Structures are given as structure tokens and as C-alpha cells.
């Protein structure tokens, strides 16, 4: 018998477990009749945040549409680890075309459905951060600007993990990638303005923009339900830790996603028609250091004893988190 203690709350987040909730509040994922749109047996790495996020997103979207859903996928980890023929993990109609065109292909699917009078069938496009903020950016902006009836989901693991951890426009400053090595006087990714796709999506004034992490899967499901209750262009940006690219333990995926939110480095919020409507408050504020330390992509910021070796860089990252906290009111005015 296992010696694991039984807890009735989610460790660290204090979120109550499903079994304590009334059935109507329980997660889709805990329901035995869920679609299982992304089945087990795929080739994702241990602790893959993207596999977890996609499973929750797809099953929720399937529940919201009573199974009338078509998924479009950009090239990337999610496409590769789920599909090599003939072993597809998808139990939804699923189309992969190219790296840069998921948004446009999804527009095509939605347009076809509309032309055929099948508007009960809904469309979900999904891509990683590279396929979203970099190579697929123009197509995505076009989808937003036309307000096409598509939910576009970005699973953001902050670099090109599928090709071996190269920098993307979503890679945070100081992070080591294969193309921003931890060498020289300014190791890791340079500091810059970054490319905050959720804010760019909001600037398009689309009906719904939300961010989420795989640390709060109930929140993720709620946002998918909300998105599917709306027509027009919707954007969901999900932070999905990547043990391979972040250099973190597979078991730390949820914890790191939670720390990204609790440090303020990743703001969890919702927006409608360009206006911020809600943000998820930080429950227990933590310094960014706690988030950086478990990830080898930031190892160059610490010395061999585990002490902060580059306080200047850590301070700049803390300043970014503080700016997010102020901008999105993440401490809920408790300060």
C-alpha cells in the first residue's frame, strides 16, 4: 500500500480537491465521461506542461460544444508528440498544416462551417509560443482584426522546445536557451521590451483575452468555458512549464507554473473588448528568486553555493514582476 498521505486540498495552492466540491463545480477532467480529446500514450516528455494544458483545454472545449469541435494545430511539440501517423492521440477532428498558419487555417475552417450553415461546430486553434508570437504572428493578428469565430490557444513554454530550446519572442530576459547561451558578460536572453501577446491581443479589441497557467486547472477550464460561450476571436494564453527547456524537475511543473503567477512574473487575467475585467490575485507573494532557482536556465544567476551571484539581473527581473503586480493589480490592493 502506498504511504502517501491523503490531503483534501491542493498542496501549495490550498485549492480544494474535486471530491469536496458539489458535482456541478467539479472539473471536466475529473468526469469519467470527459471527451479524452487528447488520449494517453503520446510522446510528450515527463512533466510536460503543454500536454497537461492541452488536455484540459480540449476536453473543456469539447464539453462546452457537446463534442462539436474542430482543432487546428501549428507545427511544434504538441503536433509532434501527439501524432506521428498512425498513432494519433486526438479524438477530435484535427488538422495540422504548417508552423505559421494555424490562425489562418482555423479561419478557413470557421468560414467553411459558416458557409455550410454548420455554425454549431466550433473551431479551436492551438500553437506554442513560437508559432504564436513569432512566425504565426501576422496570421494571428489577421484573425483578431477580422474577429473570426476561433478560439486561439497559445501554450507558452517560452522558447522553441521542439527544435532544441532556442530563443523565441516569448523567452524571458536572462533565460538560457541554445541561442542565448549563459556565457559572456550578459549571459542568457537579453533584456528588452519582450512581446506580450495577451496585451497585443487586447489591443485588437477582440471579445475575450485571458491568461492562465497549468497550476490552476480549474481556472483554465473556467476560461475555456467562458471563451466558448462567446463568438468571435478569442485568445487564451496558457503558461506551460517545460522541464526540458527550463531545466526543471518533471515533478516541479505545477509548482513552477504557480510560482510564475505568485511572483508576478506571469500575470493571470481576463479581458473583454480590450478592457481588463479581472485578474487573479497573488495569494502568497514570493520573490522572483524562488521561481528562478529551481530552473537551470537561470543557473548562471546563482553561484555554486546557491547564493544569488547576479543580484543586478535578479533585481531587474524582480522589477518586471513588480511592474506586472502594479499594472494588473495582482495584490488586490492589499499592499
Amino acid at each position, binding site marked *: 500500500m502506498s504511504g502517501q498521505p491523503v490531503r483534501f486540498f491542493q498542496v501549495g495552492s490550498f485549492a480544494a480537491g474535486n471530491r469536496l466540491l458539489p458535482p456541478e463545480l467539479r472539473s471536466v477532467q475529473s468526469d469519467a465521461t470527459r471527451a479524452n480529446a487528447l488520449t494517453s500514450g503520446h510522446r510528450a516528455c515527463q512533466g510536460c506542461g503543454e500536454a497537461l494544458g492541452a488536455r484540459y483545454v480540449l476536453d473543456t472545449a469539447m464539453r462546452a460544444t457537446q463534442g462539436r469541435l474542430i482543432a487546428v494545430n501549428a507545427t511544434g511539440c504538441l503536433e509532434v508528440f501527439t501524432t506521428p501517423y498512425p498513432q494519433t492521440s486526438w479524438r477530435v477532428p484535427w*488538422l495540422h498544416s504548417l508552423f505559421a498558419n494555424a490562425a*489562418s487555417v482555423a479561419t*478557413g475552417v470557421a468560414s*467553411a462551417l459558416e458557409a*455550410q450553415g454548420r455554425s454549431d461546430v466550433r473551431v479551436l486553434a492551438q500553437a506554442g509560443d513560437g508559432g504564436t508570437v513569432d512566425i504565426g504572428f501576422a496570421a494571428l493578428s489577421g484573425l483578431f482584426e477580422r474577429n473570426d469565430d476561433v478560439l486561439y490557444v497559445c501554450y507558452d513554454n517560452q522558447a522553441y522546445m521542439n527544435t532544441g530550446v532556442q530563443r523565441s519572442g516569448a523567452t524571458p530576459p536572462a533565460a538560457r536557451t541554445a541561442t542565448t547561451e549563459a556565457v559572456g558578460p550578459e549571459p542568457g536572453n537579453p533584456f528588452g521590451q519582450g512581446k506580450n501577446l495577451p496585451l497585443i491581443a487586447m489591443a485588437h479589441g477582440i471579445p475575450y483575452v485571458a491568461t492562465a497557467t497549468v497550476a490552476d486547472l480549474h481556472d483554465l477550464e473556467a476560461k475555456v468555458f467562458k471563451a466558448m460561450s462567446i463568438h468571435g476571436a478569442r485568445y487564451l494564453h496558457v503558461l506551460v512549464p517545460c522541464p526540458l527547456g527550463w531545466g526543471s524537475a518533471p515533478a516541479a511543473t505545477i509548482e513552477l507554473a504557480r510560482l510564475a503567477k505568485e511572483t508576478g512574473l506571469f500575470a493571470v487575467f481576463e479581458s473583454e473588448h480590450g478592457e481588463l475585467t479581472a485578474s487573479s490575485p497573488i495569494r502568497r507573494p514570493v520573490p522572483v528568486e524562488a521561481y528562478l532557482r529551481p530552473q537551470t536556465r537561470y543557473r548562471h544567476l546563482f553561484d555554486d553555493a546557491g547564493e544569488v551571484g547576479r543580484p543586478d539581473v535578479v533585481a531587474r527581473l524582480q522589477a518586471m514582476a513588480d511592474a506586472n503586480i502594479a499594472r494588473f493589480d495582482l495584490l488586490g490592493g492589499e499592499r
Partner: protein
Amino acid sequence: MLRQIEGSQAVARVVAACRPEVVCAYPITPQTHIVEAIGAMVKSGELPGCRFINVESEFSALSVAIGASATGARAYTATASQGLLFMMEALYNAAGLGLPIVMTLANRAVGAPINIWNDHSDAMAARDAGWIQLFARSNQEAADLHAQAFRLAEEVSLPVMVCMDGFILTHAFERVDVATREQIEAFLPPFEPRQVLDPAAPVSIGAMVGPEAFEEVRYLAHARHLDALGVIESVAEEFAEVVGRKSGGLVAPYRTQDAELVVIALGSVLGTIHEVVDEARDRGLRVGALGVTTFRPFPLEAVRDALAGDARLVVLEKAFSSGFGGVLSTDIAMALGGATARLSTVVGGLGGRAITETSLRRVVDDALEGRLGRLEFLDLDRAAVERELAHMAGDRRSGPIAENVLRAIGAGTAGIAGRRA
């Protein structure tokens, strides 16, 4: 219905009569008039049941068509030149997925130097993308080929590109008998996709295929192209039965019987070539012409049959492969069993330079008298070329070649009219 109409408008009307369900548009000269006209028909209600999507790039135009086609909708778009190259990745993808999209290519030169006028370098760049490529000789044929293209694409599950010369056809007003909705209905059955995104029967489309089956999948695309050769002919015949007019098919021989010289070409220049053939025949010269209507799949057998005998051959091409020579010429030689001394390539009409009867007449005379080399450039200004070569040899930072050439020939107002050496 017979009417005096711009080529683009005629194509737009036939496309509309084929009842596409998704049409995507991104502006690039000289295809704009086609999608503009379709857009107006969708907006006015003249083309019901169609979604017209203005996208942000050609890459997205074809990507929208890919999504629509995979969802079982009849999808259409149009492009030219740089636009075709910008969608190149999607071009291969649509063919690889076997999606029966129909696209007009209003043939235009590919830069640099940037040039909006007609030649075939865009179509040649897409030669190996896996699309069926049909070339229209006239606006009548361009209009008819679009109806045939939908039928053909859907029958063999491959995308079809209808190539029509930019400006020369797209912007020319002439008499065109535009197939009516009733004729199209009798000719074009509803689209029955081989694969479709359907929640009732989920499939994964476009997943990864490794070395264990990639060659077989690619071979099957080749096999479908070979099948298409037969389908193209039967579709053209059925079209003729319904509308009472022959267009399309694999090749179009003209007065080739007993010919001692055959001029071979793609597209609208065949009109001029026919004039020159007629005039040569009047002079007692045994000259004929061969139009290649279907460029991909390449009709090796039909070309071989049409060129049986030992006539000299001139392949007139509006594109070439730098550092090599003719593109169509290579295919013609292949049809004849390999390189042959009786074949000459004449490259002309680049970037919209007019191919005149006078120049063609000289080509015919030179060919008949054995004065034509293996590779010639029609009306090439040798002096201008030599001047720039000397300039480049004498000055390391010789500057932009294109500007130097134009300055040297004293251009600025020269326009696109044919200049004879």
C-alpha cells in the same frame, strides 16, 4: 453568354458560377480584378453561400483555403508573382494534403528587379509544388479552364492552378462566352471530399510521416498526377459536350502536320505564334505550333505524339533557369527521349516585354535556315549587356545592375514596348 468582357471579369463570373463556399483575397497586381469582382458578387448576394475573406497575406490566403477545403468547402483564391512565392510553403502543403483548391495565377515576373508585368517565372517557381498547372491561351480558355479546374481538382483530390498571362489576358477586353450557372450545374457535381474534418467522424489530417512511408505517400501524389492526365482529357470532353466549345486538354497542336518547324509555348503568346504560323504557311513555309495547356502533370506522351517526325523545334519560353536555360524545353526534350539537336530554346517576353510578330518571324526564318543557337534571348540588347559587363569589370563598386542598364539605354520613358536589337 457571349459578351465583351475583361478577362478577369470573365474568370470571376465562371468562378462564381462554380459556387465556391470560401474565397480569400489578398491584393497583388495583376490578379486583383478577379477577387474584387468575386467580393462584390458575394457582398451583393449574387454569389450566395460564399464567405469572402480579406486576409493579411498570400500565405494566409492559401492557408484559409486549406482550412476551408479540409472542412469540405469548395475554396478558391488568386495570386501572382511575389504572392505565389510568399505562399510557397502553403502551396506544397495544399498539394501534399491533397486538397482540391483552385487558384488563378495571373502570371507575372518575379523580382528582383521588381516588375509587375507578365512572364512565367512565377509559375515555373511552383513547378514542383505538386499542383496541377494549366495554361490558358485566351480569355475564353481562361474562363473555361476555371470550370474544368474545380471538376478536375475535386475528382483527383489535387489543387489546380490556372495560369493566365497577367495584363495580356487579365486586363484584356475581348469576346468571351461565359459559361452560365445552368451549364456549370450540369457539368460540376457537388464537392465530395475524400477527407474532411467532421466531429461525427474525427480524423487527424496532416500528421507527421517518417521515412517508413514518406516515399510511398509522395509516390501516390505522383500517381494521382498521372491519373489526372486522363481526367484532364475526359473533363475537357465533357465540358465540350455541355457548353459546345472545346477548351483545355493536354496539348493544342496547330498546323503541325507535315511541319518542318514547330514552335512550342505556354499561354497567350500562342495567339501571336498562330498568326506567324499562318503567315509563314502563306509564304509556303511548313511551320506549325504546339501549345502546352497542361504543364503539370506534364503530358509526355501527348507531346511525343504531337512532335512525331523530325521537325525542328523552337521552344519559346517566358522564363528560364539561370545558369541553365529553358524549363519547358527540358520537359519537351524529355518527351522526345532526351536532349536533341533539333530543339532550340528562345527566351523572351521577360518582365512584360512584348513578343512581336516581327521578332517571331525572324525566329522562324532563323530556325528554318539553321541559324538559331541552342539558347537564344529574344530581342536582347547585346550592346547594353556588354556595356554593363565592361562597367562591372572596371569598377568594383559598380552599383545596382538594374539602374545601370536603364541609365545606359537612356530609358525612363521607354515603357514596356518591344525593342528590337
